[in-house]
């Protein structure tokens, strides 16, 4: 419990990297198991709750770059959501180009893209967009906090939970 181990200089880097990749993994690496599990469940749960509310375009690196920067702090969860968003986006672009070509350019590819978004029910509107991006963005920001904590604990070489506080005997009053 609470062993100080400063011999490994890679520990803060590994803890930070793990904490970014999988929320809570940095704390698990530092043998703070229960804290790691709580962080993992809370951050991943909040992130995916946001994606459930907002759908595939919750993660949008082009239209919502600041939210995307916050979401990216959630690590692989955001990576998976981004990968799926890119796939859907590419498919829609191809369909929009085909639609624009069919109409002899009376409809621009951008208009066709917007129509396809609405038609396929991917369109993210208020208030779902606010809730979705707030949930997933805050999840990323919370993971940033966990990353800093893991790096700091790794830097001071603290493994495991802190030792219980020793109760000091009450001081005798001078008579």
């Amino acid at each position: 419990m609470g062993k100080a181990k400063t011999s490994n200089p890679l520990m803060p880097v590994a803890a930070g990297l793990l904490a970014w990749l999988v929320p809570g993994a940095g704390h698990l690496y530092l043998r703070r198991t229960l804290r790691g599990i709580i962080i993992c469940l809370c951050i991943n749960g909040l992130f995916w709750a946001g994606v459930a509310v907002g759908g595939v375009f919750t993660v949008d690196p082009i239209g919502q770059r600041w939210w995307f920067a916050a979401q990216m702090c959630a690590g692989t969860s955001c990576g998976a959501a981004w990968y799926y968003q890119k796939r859907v986006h590419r498919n829609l672009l191809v369909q929009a180009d085909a639609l624009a070509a069919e109409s002899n350019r009376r409809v621009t590819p951008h208009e066709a893209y917007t129509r396809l978004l609405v038609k396929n029910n991917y369109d993210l509107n208020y208030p779902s967009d606010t809730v979705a991006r707030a949930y997933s963005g805050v999840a990323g920001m919370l993971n940033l906090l966990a990353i800093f904590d893991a790096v700091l604990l790794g830097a001071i070489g603290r493994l495991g939970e802190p030792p219980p506080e020793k109760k000091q005997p009450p001081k005798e009053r001078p008579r």
Partner: protein
Amino acid sequence: MIGTLFVNPIEMGRDHIWLVLPLCAVVALVYKTVRVARLKDLPLQVLGLWAYMLAGLIILGVVLYLLV
């Protein structure tokens, strides 16, 4: 419904304001998990911070309502 979850957005009404409750709860839980020295104190600390955050938001809402 389950098939479209994570793909299509969920329509929301005016009652989406209540979703701030779980958001604040998770913020309080993660923050206190990182900060608290002994995990035994975690539930009480989380409850305290959650109430503190909600009280702050309500006061801010009332002040903004009166000013704007």
